[in-house]
């Protein structure tokens, strides 16, 4: 008996010791990753962590590296493609060993950026040339740069929409609903597909923010106001989603949807519309080619809301590349980020918006230019506050849960009304803001 107690005690002690050893790294802070003056002088081997496992596997990344080596012959670039990028990098960031270049995971709080990443320069100097700098600015210094920009919008099958007799983009949510109804009655297509089961497609609806009010301060508005107040961007978006589902305009059984399966369906015209982003157009066009239909049928339209007679579309960054603050080859890492952002042609290859302010719009956004859609860059200086309120309130505007509940509500699988539901979200939001503000 006694012996057993001793044993249990020593196990507990050992376990506590072990837990004490797993402290956290990242003690050095405030390093800079300077751009090298002479490309041929830069030496070293760097590892790039990326979420684009597809590009690592099919050798595209290697081609980028070869191209990069023409300018920087002394740098050896290796890629580490991670399928569950967020999850794996989050854990690796508890050590000092998380690559030399990496995409900033969404989980990292902005105030911690200086502890994890080396600065790329001041906001003043970078902001003149690049988009999205304020998404990673802490105390006037920029810590990351997204290589592409995306614009949210509805991906639609042009053929189906014109079959239903709709040729112009709807300008109000009500008009949009009427068009979906026309699609339902005149074609065999599912008017709208929620991708409920795969969850993340529902989170895209948060990108509506800014499109309705056409306000570059929309994110600040989230941090300071009620996102679900009457007429607020998120409320307009959520109400539209609710009305689509409650009007029977979405797929029959949302609980068993399949993202990969939805792509060929949209390409073939079995699905008419999905709310995603400009990044999805390439994938849909690929799906169309594989399904043997015309990739030109894939259309892209902005959120049905206009201010002063013009649509607004918000530009937002993808994952932002950053330099590990513990890296031994910060110059080489910085060289890679600069080259990848400015010269690699990655944005063009993905038909995405270039992060360079003076670059022309990609082809898929040409219709936007023709119809005078206003592209606005949101001010993200309050982005960290929004995230903090979001986590504190457990509402999760960047998480699928609340929109899944919204869809359940709309199709009657959950009790309650829309106003009560959105009102409650607003209440939780306000409470969380108050508790953080104190």
């Amino acid at each position, binding site marked *: 008996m006694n012996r057993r107690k001793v044993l249990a005690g020593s*196990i*507990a002690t*050992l*376990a*506590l010791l*072990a*837990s004490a050893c*797993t402290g*956290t*790294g*990242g*003690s050095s802070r405030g390093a800079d990753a300077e751009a090298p003056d002479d490309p041929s002088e830069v030496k070293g081997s760097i590892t790039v962590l990326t979420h684009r496992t597809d590009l690592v596997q099919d050798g595209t990344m290697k081609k980028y590296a070869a191209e990069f080596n023409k300018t920087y012959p002394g740098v050896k670039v290796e890629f580490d493609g991670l399928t569950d990028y967020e*999850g794996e990098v*989050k854990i690796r*960031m*508890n050590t000092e060993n998380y690559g030399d270049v990496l995409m900033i*995971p969404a*989980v*990292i*709080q902005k105030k*911690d950026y200086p*502890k994890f990443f080396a600065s790329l320069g001041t906001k003043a100097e970078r902001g003149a040339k690049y988009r999205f700098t304020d998404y990673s600015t802490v105390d006037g210094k920029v810590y990351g740069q997204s290589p592409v920009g995306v614009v949210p919008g509805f991906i639609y099958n042009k053929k189906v929409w014109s079959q239903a007799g709709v040729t112009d983009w709807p300008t109000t949510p009500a008009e949009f609903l009427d068009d979906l109804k026309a699609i339902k009655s005149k074609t065999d297509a599912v008017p709208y597909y929620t991708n*409920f*089961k795969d*969850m993340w497609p529902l989170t895209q609806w948060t990108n509506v923010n800014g499109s309705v009010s056409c306000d570059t301060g929309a994110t600040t508005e989230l941090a300071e106001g009620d996102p679900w107040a009457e007429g607020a961007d998120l409320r307009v978006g959520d109400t539209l989603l609710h009305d689509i589902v409650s009007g029977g305009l979405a797929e*029959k*059984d949302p*609980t*068993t949807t399949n993202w990969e399966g939805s792509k060929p369906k949209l390409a073939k015209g079995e699905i008419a519309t999905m709310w995603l982003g400009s990044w999805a157009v390439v994938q849909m066009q690929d799906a169309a080619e594989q399904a043997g239909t015309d990739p030109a049928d894939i259309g892209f339209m902005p959120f049905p809301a206009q201010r002063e007679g013009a649509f607004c579309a918000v530009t937002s960054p993808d994952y932002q590349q950053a330099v590990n603050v513990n890296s031994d080859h910060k110059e080489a890492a910085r060289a890679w980020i600069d080259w990848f952002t400015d010269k690699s042609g990655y944005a063009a290859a993905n038909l995405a918006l270039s992060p360079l302010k003076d670059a022309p719009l990609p082809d898929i956004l040409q219709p936007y230019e023709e119809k005078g859609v206003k592209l606005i860059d949101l001010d993200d200086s309050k982005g960290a506050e929004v995230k903090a309120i*979001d*986590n*504190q309130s*457990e509402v*999760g505007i960047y*998480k*699928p*849960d609340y929109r*899944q*509940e919204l869809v*359940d509500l709309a*199709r009657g*699988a*959950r009790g309650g009304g829309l106003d009560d539901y959105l009102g409650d979200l607003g209440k939780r939001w306000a409470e969380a803001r108050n508790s953080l503000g104190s």
Partner: protein
Amino acid sequence: MTDTTRKAARPVAPAAPAGPKRAAPAPRRTRLSRRLTPWLFLVAPLALLLTFTYAPIANMLAYSFTDWDGVSPELNWTGTENYTELLTRSELFEVFFVSGYYLVASVVQIVLALYFATVLSFNVRFRNFFKGVLFFPYLINGVAIGFVFLYFFQDGGTLDSVLSLLGVGTDHAWLGTPFSANTSLAGVSVWRYLGLNFVLFLGAIQSIPGELYEAAEIDGASRWHQFRYIIAPGIKPILGLSVILSVSGSLSVFEIPYIMTGGATGTETFVIQTVKLAFQFNKTGLASAAAVVLLLIVLAVTWVQRRIVPDEKVDLV
């Protein structure tokens, strides 16, 4: 040759008397190594156990008293704040209603397993084949089961087509409403774990000596009587174990609902909720506290159960 050199090298050795040499305690080195041997064997498993079970648990306990977000290098000691928050937010415990579905399902599961184990313990045709069929699902990975059943319950999926073959044309969205979804998921869980209970019961039944059945048959006992008076008391400890396992299992369901619905449509269990707290909302501290609370609840339920149904030694003969 060697003998002589050794003797020469150790002149002291012969001084010890020859007789009691055997009875005297073994030389120190032998004694030490004899004591150490079992520990040496234990080093590997103990090291693994400590590293992968106890250290993480100790870590989790420590985190449950902090406000750690799971990645930040900064974490603050918050005392029992997380526990207070947990216990004052009753909505966090509402998810235990979902466990009710799995609890009911595990009753069904135990009854079915007992039935099949009893039937297959007698001489039945294709006995081994049926044993295999029943046990097979338990060998499949839980994630794979989730995906398979997602197709099974799909609109126009396997279940719908089988039903329409039988002439029952339904248009039911199986995962569409909380009741239907939870029932479907609990059904999957029964399908998966039936095999484990079945094998446990079968093993227990087969350890009952065969003479007992023969004697009973001579006395004219029917199959039901054999079950009632021989099998049931004979497998009581295993039955008790199964009940404990299913209750704690029902409280901590995770894999199947997480993969199939992700907790949507009212299928969220306590563990899914904990995972979401930790990895979606970055409240690792609160989530650790929730995990500790779940552990305590499971321990408490098990303890109550053991008090109500104490473990008795079975003596059939």
